[in-house]
């Protein structure tokens, strides 16, 4: 009953005041996950370029931002959604919370690296890009005598055991893209094998993207898999950290989109236009922001050592990336990673450590049986509960969307996958320990 009266009040309210609510004002409201270091320079530059317009920046993490826009759609007060994670924009688009707008900018190519810059239907546009790489704390590396890593595969080496951190792909849209790139580049089975070998060395799997650079900066972990600008802005703040792009890296765009029913639609479009205009693109070059412009011409104004994905083929261009494949299995990949790695990290690490020890022993004293056992152990670790086809099947995808159709519930799948992984990690550990005994 109470809900009804509230709803009724809402209806009356909307009927009475809808005219006023959508009136134009000089305020553009932006919901963003970007930090002050990024938003402040843009706010200044945009307000200078558009006198009389104020940019009202509301900082929320991406999840909170999406939920906020979703919950307030009945009486929307937000003009622009501005964030990194493309998956957040996909969700907004899927729920009809964005409106189409193709920015009036020239000279912006279709793709950066192998990733399309703009949404093909123009619901959101890329305004900057960033590459994934490895960041490490120099003092930490020296104290623990860690060699400098060069490539993803390096992170699977025993020397880095318990020294690496990454954000969970289910929590960080950009990490998700990196995982997806590895899966597409190496193939489903080999890709997961690599991922699990690297993950076996993890110290932490954080639930915030920024948790990784934070941990590396303060020296709590040695190495982190991060987006480049985290490393660059940390360096700019004086932290003793270094960064490297692996030979194969993903380039992921950061996006902006106009919210459906934006109270200040014209202002919102002006802001999107500004972001992709040459003036807006140059703001990206500031040391505290340091993201890669999507307009190739702007790189002419960048410092000499600035990475340029339009010239440097190792930055994303070598990677294949199929957006359709990725979209179909987004949730499945996230949940698979969480259930087989994030929540089973202890068992995975125990198995990994046992394998490392056994291999070290075999390297000293060769033993064919031990080698066979180690191979079995590695295969057990790499095994996945579902095949590539199954992962993108409608049955599994349907379990995560809470859709209308009946089918497997997410909790059922999760329990099945987790049990599968845990059992195999324990077997792998046992086999590796057996191998160690043989090789002694």
């Amino acid at each position, binding site marked *: 009953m109470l809900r009804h009266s509230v709803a009724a009040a809402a209806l009356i309210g909307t009927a009475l005041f809808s005219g006023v*609510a959508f009136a134009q004002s000089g305020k553009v409201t932006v919901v963003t996950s970007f930090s002050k270091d990024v938003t402040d320079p843009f706010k200044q530059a945009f307000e200078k370029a558009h006198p009389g317009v104020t940019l009202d920046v509301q*900082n929320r993490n991406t999840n909170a931002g999406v939920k906020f826009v979703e919950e307030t759609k009945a009486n929307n007060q937000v003009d622009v959604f501005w964030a990194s994670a493309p998956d957040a924009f996909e969700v907004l688009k899927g729920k009809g919370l964005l409106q189409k707008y193709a920015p009036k900018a020239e000279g912006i190519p279709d793709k950066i690296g192998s990733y399309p810059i703009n949404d093909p239907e123009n619901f959101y546009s890329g305004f900057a890009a960033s590459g994934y790489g490895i960041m490490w704390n120099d*003092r930490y590396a020296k104290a623990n005598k860690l060699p400098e890593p060069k490539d993803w595969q390096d992170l699977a080496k025993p020397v880095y055991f318990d020294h690496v951190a990454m954000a969970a792909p289910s929590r960080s849209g950009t990490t998700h893209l990196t995982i997806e790139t590895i899966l597409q580049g190496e193939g489903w089975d080999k890709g997961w094998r690599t991922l699990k070998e690297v993950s076996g060395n993890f110290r932490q799997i954080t639930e915030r993207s920024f948790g990784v650079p934070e941990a590396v*900066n303060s020296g*709590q972990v040695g190495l982190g898999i991060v987006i480049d600008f985290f490393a660059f802005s*940390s360096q700019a703040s004086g932290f003793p950290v270094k960064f490297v792009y692996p030979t194969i890296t993903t380039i992921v765009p950061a996006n902006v989109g106009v919210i459906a029913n934006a109270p200040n639609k014209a202002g919102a479009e002006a802001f999107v236009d500004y972001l992709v205009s040459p003036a807006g693109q140059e703001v990206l070059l500031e040391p505290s922001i340091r993201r890669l412009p999507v307009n190739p011409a702007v790189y002419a104004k960048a410092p000499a050592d600035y990475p340029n994905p339009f010239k440097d083929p190792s930055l994303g261009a070598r990677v294949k990336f199929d957006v359709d494949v990725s979209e179909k299995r987004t949730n499945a990949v996230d949940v698979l990673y969480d259930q087989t790695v994030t929540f089973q990290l202890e068992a995975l690490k125990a198995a990994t450590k046992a394998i490392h020890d056994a291999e070290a022993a075999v390297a000293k004293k060769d033993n064919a049986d031990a080698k066979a056992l180690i191979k079995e152990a590695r295969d057990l670790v790499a095994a996945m509960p579902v095949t590539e086809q199954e992962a993108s099947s409608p049955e599994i995808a349907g379990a995560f969307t809470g859709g209308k159709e009946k089918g497997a519930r*997410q909790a059922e799948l999760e329990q099945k996958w987790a049990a599968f992984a845990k059992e195999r990690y324990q077997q792998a550990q046992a086999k590796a320990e057996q191998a160690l005994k043989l090789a002694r």
Partner: protein
Amino acid sequence: MADATIAGRTRAPSAPSGYFKRLSASPGQIALAFGIALFLLLFLVVPVGTVIYVAFTEKGTGEFTLVNFLDFARTDLFIRSFWNSVYVSAMSVVVASVLALPLAYITTRFEFRGAMLIQTLGFLPLIMPPFVGAVAMLLLFGRNGTVNLLLDDWLGLKIPFMEGLNGVIFVQAVHYFPFILINLSAALRNIDRAMEEAAQNLGSSGFRLFRRIVFPLAMPGYIAGASLVFVKVFDDLATPLLLNVKDMLAPQAYLRVTSIGIADPMGYVISVVLICMSILAMWVSARAMRGKDYATVQRGGGGLAKRRMRPWESAIAYGVVLLILFLVLAPHIGLLLLSFATVWSFSPLPDAFTLAHYGRVFGESFVYVKNTMIYASIAGLIDVVLGTAIAYLVLRTKLIGREWLDWAATAALAIPGVVLGIGYLRTFYGVQLPDGTPLAALWIMIVLALAIRRLPYALRACYAALQQISVSLEEAAENLGATKLRTIRRIVLPLMGGGILAGFVTSFATAAVELSATLMLVQSNADAPLAYGLYVFMQSAAGRGPGAALGVIAVLLVALCTFASHVIIEKSQKAKAAGR
């Protein structure tokens, strides 16, 4: 045991008091109960209900089902998380008690210089600003924090303070022990001195006196604090997540509720389990107190007799107090260092010091400080008013279902802030004000959310305070012709004073640094509190220093208010003692 020692004096009126008015409820009390019920319904039950009803719906059809709870019981991860949460909460209570008991006892029982300062400092850990507090703690106690780097240098070993479940217990105990300290201290101050004197006359002294008389009499305060610690630790998600412990219930709920694009009921199922467990814990603690009467008649004597310590006692006492304070204030020392540090990375101390961070936040912190003060004090006021009223209704009337007010308010502890925030948006955003702005966009909604979230703290403090007051005092006043209202105003409230203030301070201080619901509800920078400003800074490497500076400002602000209220307590008690 407690009965035996206390009942002789305080239970006396129990037989003839059967006909006294506490059995019935006046129309005024019924109206009050309805008012509170309506408030809780509107600002807690309905908003939360709109979010967590999903836990009871079937996938696909949306029909009512309990299958999701079956899934919960069948999933290893959830069961493991459940037991981990129970273990961590119970152990945190134990460790927090070890920290709190000496501080509370020494400062209330002895003539101790700086007792007020210690009470204030001992309270600070509760005010751990989000994010920065965690960073500071890691920089000191983490695997490569100050302590471990030095230990590694000198002795070649590291102590895993912050690893796994034990790490969570350590941090939670340090963070939440003030709940026990503040409630226990308030209770100790309220103890009838005559009880102690009687025991002494009968030959009891020292530890025996404490164990058999003083501590049992202070039991309501201790239970109030301990149950809060248990429930708070059980429902807290920030600390486990900061330590990357994910297999506990509250973090599991949070991770699921905040995943983008996945419509999974399990997050809400876990929320329901959290709420049930919190209510269960409160019920058990109320049960444990049942059949025991902790009220004493004689009041206002300034509590326990304060003894002067012999020099060697004094030395030990100072040693213990300083050691505990150093341990529990370490995060704040770290925070202070961080706010002055240029770069602090993999080293025992920062590389160099600077004032620049304070310069950067100086200009903008004013609006944050102002908002925080306004929000937190209104929320605190709402909380003590509701807390006192609910405690009175539960303890002094026989209204049917009165415990439900208590339990509903307590359930707020278990509701993740983000769930409450979403619920508020869902319930109130559709309601528009005459100028077209949504109701949920008003800052008053942030205040209400804060008040609801911190109500359990104030409630427990008020509840414990009222439990220590003998009904016979009210009965005496009413027999002398005072009306119920007048009795409450002139007798009950003044006697509850210390507890009410304790409740206000706890609610106020913790509301001042709350973030999760705030982050959902803040609509513009001009309305934002300190915690939000801090959040905005703590998303980038360059923002760590300024974030820490804002954190220090928040802590100082709350500490000043806390200190002021301790001064007020002391003064009022001295005044009472003098007037006796």
